[in-house]
């Protein structure tokens, strides 16, 4: 992993930020960073492999603020290849994609934390064969 | 003045109680009772009081005249 080229500050496009602001303003999250992490988690859960953010990017948080114990990076490392794209660069892309997906659901079904979590749950545990 | 009744229990009770006061003649007691019976439902007691006062004054006057 090329940690040395990873981000120390992460952010989103302007649209992405606007989406997160709206989520917070609607009372779904207490803090903007909570919305950010949720968006990352949502995109990871869905298994998307998002591209780089195309539009102008704006930083929002220091890494230490958003991922103080490195759990987010651990999750990303396990689920996405981090050889060429380090975890926090992935995090930005995931946050962008995730916030869009959440916004789409919000428009059609409305935002409900419980429902979002239920969607991500596996019906049963898969047994993994030893490699 | 009063309607005849088969048995006037109030008068009977009065006569019974009057045995303890032999100095009172039965006519006096009967007359006092008659006044009260005739006016027993009157709201104002003015008439029976006046009649009783007169009854006893006349009785006293008669007693004095006899002496």
């Amino acid at each position: 992993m090329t940690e040395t080229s990873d981000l120390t500050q992460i952010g989103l496009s302007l649209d992405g930020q606007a989406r997160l602001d709206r989520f917070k303003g609607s009372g779904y999250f207490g803090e903007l960073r909570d919305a950010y992490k949720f968006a990352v988690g949502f995109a990871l859960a869905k298994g998307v492999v998002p591209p780089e953010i195309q539009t102008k990017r704006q930083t929002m948080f220091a890494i230490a603020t958003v991922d103080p114990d490195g759990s987010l990076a651990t999750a990303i490392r396990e689920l996405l290849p981090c050889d060429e794209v380090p975890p926090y660069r992935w995090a930005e892309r995931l946050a962008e994609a995730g916030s869009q997906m959440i916004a789409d659901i919000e428009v059609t079904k409305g935002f409900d934390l419980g429902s979002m979590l239920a969607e991500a749950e596996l019906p049963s545990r898969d047994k993994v064969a030893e490699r | 003045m009063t309607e005849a009744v088969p048995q006037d229990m109030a008068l009977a009770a009065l006569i019974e109680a009057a045995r303890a006061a032999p100095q009172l003649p039965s006519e006096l007691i009967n007359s006092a009772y008659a006044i009260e019976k005739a006016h027993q439902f009157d709201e104002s007691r003015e008439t029976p009081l006046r009649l009783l006062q007169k009854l006893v004054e006349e009785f006293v006057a008669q007693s004095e005249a006899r002496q």
Partner: protein
Amino acid sequence: MKLIRLTLTNFMPYKGETILDFPQDPDRNTLIVLGDNMRGKTSLLNGIRWAFYQKAQGRHLRAIPLHLMPNRDAVAEGDWTMEARIEFEAGGVYYDLRREAKKRATVSRPDRPEDYQVFAFMKKDGAAVAASDIEAEINRFAPEQVSRFFLFDGELLQEYEELLVEGSEQGKKIKDAIEQALGVPALINGRDDLQALWKRAQKEQGKEASLVAGLEAVAESFSKWSARRDMFEADIVTLKAQQVAVREERRSLEDSIAESESVYAHKIELDAKRERLKQIFTGIESKESFKRSLAADAWRDLVRPRLLKKRDQLQARLAGASKLASQQAKLQYQIEHLQEHLGDSVCPTCGQRVENVDRAAQQRQLDDLLGERAALAWCDVNSEDIAARHRALEKVLSTSVRSRVRDADSDLSNLEVESARVESRIDELEEELFEQNPDAVIRMRQRLQAVTRDEAKGQIEIEDREKKLAEADREIQSLTQRMNARAGQNSTRAAVMSKIFGALHGVFDASIDNLRTNLRAIVEKNATDAFLRMSTQKSYRGLSINANYGLTILGPDGECVPLRSAGAEQVVALSLIDGLSRANRAPGPVVMDTPFGRLDTKHRHNILSYLPDSARQFILFVHDGELGESAGMESLAHRIGGKYEIQEVSSNQSRLRRMS
């Protein structure tokens, strides 16, 4: 007393003139008036009542306001006059009593009782009686206080249960009414009147004594105590009048509060619901805030399923690495051991000397082991790395908020359902209370508390004055005796009159208890006779009377029968009425309005056989269901002196038709 004729004009449902003739033959002394419910039977009873007492009773014995009494159809035609006339005979004298209500000239459409004027006229053997004397005349034969015993509304039967409740207000009223019916007032009034006259005479005596030498001090003391007594009596009169007013206010408040109980209860409920709604909203806000706090770690639950798979994979790899390490260690040991003992003539296993050691075979074995070791080296994994990744994953997975979010959602859902329910109930209550004034109810309750306290206080003050009055009386009696003793043979006229009034007062006072005791015994006997004739339960011994003239049934062993059916209650009440009417008063008419609602056929038969004998005239208002041809008429057939039927003309009008 004997009723002759009732004539009604525009009275309640009877438009125009309506006449009811009462039977005059003592052998055929029963009058039947048949009619369906709500057609006008009770109105006929009210016609008699209104003629005598200017009062009419509606349901639950409530007074009917005057302006609601004139027939509506007559009123619609502009005829606002109403009249009730009763002709009767009493004490050998013919009476004609007429009472008339007329709209006041200044009123166009009466809508309150005050909009009418009422006039009463009475003739006695054709000669007019002065208006001021009419009430006294009526009191001689049919005083209102005892009217309940001959103008008998079926609803009144419920009142008699009150007699069994010692100390109840209603029971005391009925007891007073019974005693008035039996002549006790003559003695009570006599006692009180004579006491008043006695006091007056004593005062005169006191004045005269002040002129007698040696009695000045006694006279002065007498005068002081007399003045005190007057003051206490005046206080008691004032306090009792105040008590009456306070009691009246209390009853009125109790009635109003009872009527508005539901308003009060709704107001209390509304306040509670509003409070609950506030709590619910606070709860919702709190739960939502809690959910927001859980959202901080919610991302972990999103990735949990995929990370669990990864963790399981790492776990399996760690298990594999461990197994490999174990195999490698075993191989290594075997290799080292062989290398060490290659060519030895000693068995490497048991340490015994071995002949003809096969060095070539041992070398082959060693080569095989080395080959295996080399093969395993290819499978070697970086178990440190895997273990580190596994630990990192466990740390991510250690926190889960999903179940707490689920619980919070469940709580929120319940709160929302409850809030909808509570809001709906609040709307209902607000609508119900829209035109009410719940604050007025609260003020009434507060006022009731104050009035109840005043009543208690008033009672204490009265008792205090009565004690002081009794003390003053004792002092005065003692001083009077001293004056009398001193006067000896030379008593003044005032002293003589005082003695006589005192003696008369004592006789009347003593007679009251005597009378009460005798009366109760007679009423009990008469009521028992009537009861045994009317009851269907032949094992009963009779009735027993209490101090309030309440009657209990005695069973076969003389024990009290505790619970009575409604029917038995009616029979007991009828027995009491009959017992009273035969105890002291001259026999008179008994008018009964639908008394048979709760009675079975057998009881009805017994009653109808008996009652016509107990009253001079027996007038019975019934509906077909109570007294149809099959339900008891035959017991009365030979006593019937008249029969009427009430017919419906319209919803506002009925007509009385004579059938025989």
